[in-house]
């Protein structure tokens, strides 16, 4: 797999405040990479640095093989950015907005009208195409902004809090559209958000940012495993467990904790390889096993644990 984004020791300060602090990470081509962090963590600043619209104070970055600082214009031709505020020209119509940005991104005149129409259609703006965008609802503006970021068929997409401030329905539409366009054509997506459900649904890997520092990067599942010692396994039983089950389970090498609540049994093991031994021990002790589910840590658990640790240190 090739690398879409790579940074090393990236730093950006504003006065005495360090917005992006010694940031090093990479995102593979074709993946959806989520950057999670509270307001002021440095997400927007990072997007600006990665697109060369802001200068870094130290470190280096490569996006699609370009150095954003020196090859910004070439990079921006292949990159689409959905900014935090919709950045729609409210005095222009939806069509004029798309046409304008398409021209600036160098879409050939011959393709532009067709592409504009297709996007307006797909984003449900067709019947309002020639109305001024100023009269649009927030959700429509955001969909128009989304269409704008796609007009030049970019190889990499940056979404900066795409659903912030939208009502659930509009947010859902935007998330659906992002899901639809993310997978397509091996396009890389860099998604900044503090909406963890959205990140959980869309992202292959996430980075967790706090005060400009990356606290962790990885697949949500891997992050969970690294953060907590051991792995919890939920074992569903058809009947209350036989007496002595907990003692039998604690006898398994690698099992560290057992909880029994009615017909619900939970066992903490060192790692996944211990699970088969736990299952046979339980069966041998007479437990009627219905299902076995290794417990995944939700992105919520991961996020809040990391943020709390960072604040504490």
């Amino acid at each position, binding site marked *: 797999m090739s690398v879409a984004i790579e940074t090393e020791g990236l730093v950006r300060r*504003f006065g005495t405040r360090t917005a992006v602090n010694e940031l090093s990470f990479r995102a593979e081509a074709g993946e959806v990479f989520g950057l999670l962090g509270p307001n002021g963590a440095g997400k*927007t*600043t990072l997007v*600006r640095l990665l*697109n*060369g*619209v*802001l*200068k870094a104070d130290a470190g280096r970055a490569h996006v699609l093989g370009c150095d954003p600082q020196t090859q*910004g*214009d*070439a990079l*921006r*031709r292949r*990159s689409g*950015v959905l*900014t*935090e*505020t919709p*950045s*729609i*020209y*409210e*005095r*222009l119509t939806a069509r*004029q907005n798309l046409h*304008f*940005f398409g*021209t*600036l*991104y*160098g879409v050939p*005149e011959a393709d532009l009208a067709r592409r504009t129409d297709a996007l307006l259609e797909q984003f449900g703006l067709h019947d309002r195409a020639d109305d*001024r965008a100023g009269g649009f609802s927030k959700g429509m503006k955001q969909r128009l*902004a989304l269409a*704008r970021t796609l007009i030049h068929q970019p190889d990499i997409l940056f979404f900066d809090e795409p659903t912030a401030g939208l009502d659930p329905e509009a947010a859902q539409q935007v998330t659906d559209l992002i899901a639809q366009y993310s997978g397509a054509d091996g396009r890389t997506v860099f998604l900044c958000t503090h909406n963890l459900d959205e990140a959980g649904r869309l992202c292959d890997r996430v980075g967790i940012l706090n005060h400009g520092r990356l606290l962790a990067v990885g697949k949500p599942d891997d992050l969970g495993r690294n953060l907590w010692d051991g792995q919890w396994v939920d074992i569903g039983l058809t009947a209350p467990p036989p007496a002595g089950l907990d003692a039998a389970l604690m006898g398994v090498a690698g099992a560290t904790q057992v909880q029994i609540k009615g017909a619900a049994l939970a066992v903490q093991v060192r790692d996944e390889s211990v699970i088969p031994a736990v299952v046979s021990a339980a069966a041998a002790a007479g437990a009627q096993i219905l299902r076995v589910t290794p417990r995944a840590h939700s992105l919520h658990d991961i996020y809040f644990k990391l943020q709390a640790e960072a604040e504490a240190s």
Partner: protein
Amino acid sequence: MNWRTIRAIALKDWREVRGNKMAWAPTLIVPLIFCVVLPLLIIVLPGTLSNGEAGDMMKDADLELFLANLPPAMAASIAGLNESQTMIVLLLGYLFSPLFLILPIMTSSVIGSDSFVGEKERKTMEALLYTPATERELFTGKMLAAVIPAVLLTWAGFAVYTLVLNSAGGVVMGRVWFPLPHWWVMVLWVTPAVAVLGMMGAVVISARVKSFMEAYQNTGLLVLPVIMLVIGQVAGLLYLSVLVAFGIGLVVWLIDGILLLFALRIVTRAALMGADKGA
């Protein structure tokens, strides 16, 4: 420089300004006052006053001093004219020519403010900076969006002014007498320079303010040099001959050049974005 990009930016800005009544309403009212209302007043008023009053006006001590000290070429242009005719030539033929520069400077600075601060204020600048348009293309597009309408508006105003001065004014003057030679230089050479100056002023002011209204109020300062030219003329320090007009144009173009160097440092992605604290 990609002219397709530049054209798109200029057209977009122009469309946007047309949507901002606050921006363009004054740029239509002021020319109307300058090119039609004031000239008509000056032409018609002395005629309606009794001869005595007009005569009194001409006997005002300051004015007499002014007339006595006229540069020879200017004195020659009013030699043999009666009092009303002298008034018309001095006021509309000479005093008004620097005043006319208010049109290009006001128009271009208002459009320039709308296109720079307006874009910051309405939070559309960021998306623009993410496009591959180069800083020079952005700047040139915005420059053309301000300067072309400013120059065209001034030329249209000049055409109307000429018409008024030769029709209504022609009755008093008894002939087609306008434009005087230096007007051509003012309109063709100085006007574009001043339009560019208004735009540059707007760029520099825009870098320091947050809203269109604030920029709009500050661009009022740009009219000061024009007022100084008018005062210079009234005080008899300056006589707008073809050569002087040419010289004024040259000076303004030079100032434009210096401001351009300054503006190109303000209109960079890093400077525009670095000043934005985000949402």
